[in-house]
């Protein structure tokens, strides 16, 4: 009998409680989930349902009050020390005094990537998202979509195995959002990262993910898991299919519960 490979991310009965002098907030209660290697999982829920907290727990930025968090069979803290996580936020959060390519190089300086290969690596990555002409531009000279592309590339630079994305496209306009969603799918199908993608946009979750985990607030918990049975290599046309709309409907009903 061969031992089965551990899941990429495993949470078991995780509680997160924040205590302030005035109140106690149950950010997450009894959250259990397993994410396979290379799986794209969307965490869908209203504001305050703890979906961002869940990402922070996975990446060891927040410690659970109780429960188990494992990444590839070891504690989250170890995975963090092994630079397994690439984090993308709602805002690009770039360093304004560094140019696009210098921003992408930041994590390479920290993870001790071979210095001689840093620039070439960043150039390739930025080229793939169409920013070749903007390598030396500063953040204030870039559009919102370009800045978020830089932020995504920054989270991929040292080739981490897990991408954690916290509503990365919610501040963008519809057109740019669509472009970035497709670019993200292209990156994912090429590099087979495990992606945990937080969003409050139902159709975005269905369009991108293999599985949608629907969350509910007060206390934050997972209320439903919806496998997305749409063909891969999705293109924007899939949004108009009946199947897609049925998935959206199921997710919406799960949110209402």
């Amino acid at each position, binding site marked *: 009998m061969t031992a089965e490979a551990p899941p990429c991310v495993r949470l078991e009965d995780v509680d997160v409680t924040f205590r302030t002098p005035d109140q106690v907030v149950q950010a997450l209660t009894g959250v259990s989930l397993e994410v396979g290697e290379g799986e794209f999982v969307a965490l869908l829920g209203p504001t305050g349902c703890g979906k961002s907290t869940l990402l922070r727990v996975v990446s060891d930025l927040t410690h659970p009050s109780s429960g188990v968090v494992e990444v590839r069979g070891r504690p989250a803290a170890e995975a963090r020390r092994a630079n397994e*996580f690439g984090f993308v*936020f709602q805002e690009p959060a770039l360093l304004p*005094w*560094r*140019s696009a390519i210098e921003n992408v190089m930041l994590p390479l300086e920290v*993870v001790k990537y071979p210095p001689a290969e840093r620039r070439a690596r960043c150039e390739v990555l930025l080229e793939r998202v169409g920013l070749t002409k903007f390598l030396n531009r*500063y953040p204030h000279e870039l559009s919102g979509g370009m800045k978020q592309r830089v932020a995504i590339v920054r989270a991929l630079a040292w080739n981490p195995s897990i991408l*954690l994305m916290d509503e990365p496209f919610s501040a963008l306009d519809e057109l740019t959002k669509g472009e970035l969603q497709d670019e993200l799918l292209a990156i994912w199908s090429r590099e087979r990262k495990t992606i945990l993608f937080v969003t409050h946009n139902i159709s975005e979750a269905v369009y991108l993910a293999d599985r949608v985990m629907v969350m509910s607030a007060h206390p934050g918990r997972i209320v439903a898991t919806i496998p997305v049975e749409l063909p891969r290599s999705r293109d924007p046309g899939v949004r108009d299919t009946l199947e897609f709309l049925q998935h959206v409907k199921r997710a919406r009903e799960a949110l209402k519960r």
Partner: protein
Amino acid sequence: MSQPKPAPRESLLERLTPPALILAVALAIWEGLVRTFDVPPWLLPAPTDIAVRFVKATNLLYHTGLTVLEALAGFAASAVIGITLSALIVHSRFLERGVFPYIIVSNAIPIIAIIPLLTIWFGYGIAPKIMIASIITFFPIVTNTTRGLKSADRRILDFMHSINATRSEVFFKVQLPTALPYIFAGFKIAASLSLVGAVVAEFYGSDRGLGYLVITSATQLRTDLLFVSIIVLAALGVTLFAIFGHLEKLALRGEAALEPNR
């Protein structure tokens, strides 16, 4: 079709002409009043008298140099100690709580009251003057630096933590560059304060420096020399402010850069 040309940049001459004209008129009126009403020079010397005194004043450069030295030495000590302390404060909750009350108290003590004490301890040399310049500049440097270090983007700090960055990497790659504009804002305030500190310290027990010159020319009613000292001090203040303003611009070039290539 010809493109409309951008407006020509205002030249230095164009910008300096209005204030220079106003100054010239004011000086002419001043000179005229003093000559017409025969005002005694101990009360109000004419601008030309002041100019003559400026040229003939002996040791003016020496006194000026000494005061500048005291001010800058105090400033530099304050910058080194202040920035180091701020770095420690943002890394330690204990230090922040333990030290900040005393930093605030230090700012509340009237600096003039400390000068005699420092003179008892360190004598009449330049040491107590440097210390006063240092103490008076300490507060704006520490408060500004601390605020700057703390204003680093929460998410970038999270990002750095998520890739296991060390404290010194976070400090030098994120917090310190974020704080630079705040630090230079503190420097600009501290620059003029350091001069005030050095001059006020020289008022009490010294035989050289611009502060000494101010006090002696006042007590001897050499009002022309008093004016010369004040003008030199004003010029020094403006110069220091301009230097730090320029350094601030240099430090911020990345953010405000219009040229895409560096």
